[in-house]
């Protein structure tokens, strides 16, 4: 860590943001500012998210971490009061470019929410939902993808006997894994997870975390959590956001043993600011 390049920086926080090699990065956020009805939520964020790694966004409530996550999926499109500046590039392609269809973007960038939100249909239909939207698959192929997705989400063995049962009959943890399977079924490149385990019990949480780690080989994961131990457990890189700004962005090992900035230190060790 001593070998870190000693760049003289005017901004102290600039020093605490690790520079991911552009070739290894999947998402690139540049100068992103976002405001709800004039109230700024993110200001001038610049970072790269490494491909096939788990990157965690941590920070206190209202720090903008969820806002950032939703921006990556263009979920803010629905809200007319949101104004945005700056660029978000997925594999080098600006996601707000006119030629990018939002449905296609959301297929490439899946999202899992805090509360498990299976649809009011059977387990099978939940997983097949995205496939049916795209269409063009025969029943056999669809069955295969559903099984693959459920296996990838480590849920297959628990539900293979009752694929026709209502998704709401599953436990909270199973529901969340079902939602992940549903997202995986459309083969996304990036999976955004917004507090995916905050509504779950510790065992279900561990299963989700295990799943996150195992999915790393297939896709890039971005995790928002207010549970610092969780970020420390599952992520490879951690970004600490505060007040809509990126404070520190570093490999998780470094950030949790030896953060560079007092604000980060205070947050992750539970000190008063």
């Amino acid at each position: 860590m001593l070998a870190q390049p000693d760049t003289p920086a005017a901004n102290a926080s600039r020093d605490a943001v690790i520079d991911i090699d552009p070739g290894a990065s999947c998402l690139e956020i540049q100068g992103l500012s976002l405001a709800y009805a004039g109230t700024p939520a993110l200001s001038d964020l610049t970072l790269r998210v490494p491909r096939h790694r788990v990157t965690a966004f941590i920070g206190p409530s209202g720090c903008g971490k969820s806002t950032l996550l939703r921006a990556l999926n263009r979920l803010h499109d629905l809200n007319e009061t949101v104004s945005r500046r700056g660029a978000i590039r997925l594999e080098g392609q600006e996601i707000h470019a006119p030629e990018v269809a939002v449905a296609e973007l959301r297929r490439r960038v899946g999202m899992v929410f805090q509360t498990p939100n299976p649809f009011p249909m059977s387990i099978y239909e939940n997983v097949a939902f995205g496939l049916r939207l795209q269409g063009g698959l025969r029943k056999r192929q669809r069955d295969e993808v559903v099984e693959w997705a459920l296996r990838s989400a480590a849920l297959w063995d628990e539900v293979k006997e009752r694929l026709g049962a209502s998704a709401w009959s599953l436990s909270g943890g199973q529901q969340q894994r079902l939602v992940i399977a549903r997202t995986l079924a459309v083969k996304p490149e990036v999976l955004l997870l917004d507090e995916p385990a905050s509504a779950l019990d510790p065992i279900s949480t561990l299963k989700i975390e295990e799943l996150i780690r195992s999915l790393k080989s297939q896709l890039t994961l971005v995790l928002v959590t207010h549970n610092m131990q969780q970020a420390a457990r599952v992520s490879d890189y951690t970004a600490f956001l505060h007040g809509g700004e990126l404070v520190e962005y570093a490999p998780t090992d470094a950030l949790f043993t030896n953060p560079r900035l007092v604000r980060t230190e205070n947050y992750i060790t539970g000190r008063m600011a």
Partner: protein
Amino acid sequence: MDITSDTHSQHISKQFNQELEELKTHLMAMGGLVEKQVQDAVTALLDGDSRLAERVRDNDDAVNDMQLKIDDECTRVLARRQPAASDLRLVLAVIRATSDLERIGDEASKIARNAMSLAEAGNGSKGFIEVRHISEHVRKMVRDALTAFARFDIDLALEVVHEDEAVDSEYTTAMRSLMTFMMEDPRSISSVLSVMWILRALERIGDHANNLAEYVVYLVKGLDIRHIDPDELDEEAIKRRG
């Protein structure tokens, strides 16, 4: 980032503050006891006071007990608080420091045992000058390392690291002169050997004090300098970092 000695009292959880504070207090108490053991052992040797030497030997149990107790507290903090960053480093540094302090205690009782045998033999005070000299040096190192720990004082800690080199060279010189004694007077071989053991113990104490100082650097800066040659240590870089 740099931490200071009061960093650990700013947690939202007052209980956590208190637990970390107790860790530090207990470590300092153990350090004080160990330092006194070293001093008493050397005094017993120089004064030929075998009763004092005996007391030093017996007190070693108290040192061991303290180590167990502090380690226990550290385990509890790790299990219940899952400390991160500077808190984590503090707990790790304390665990390591207790182990070194316990070794220093062991060395002190080793000195005391040798002092007892020398006092019984009742002959000679050859090499005592060297012992006095080195012991003073080593005791200062232990004291400084503990002070650096207590104050999170990186300058003082680095001083201790450099001090150790001086002690090592003094030790080599002293050994050489004791060899000369043995060659000159073969009858004094057994007593000189005891003194050599004592010098060896003092040198080990210096090494442990050096370790303590290195933990302070880890604690404050998050850098592990244990296996870096002191001469190659870029002190400026260490101090600037944060």
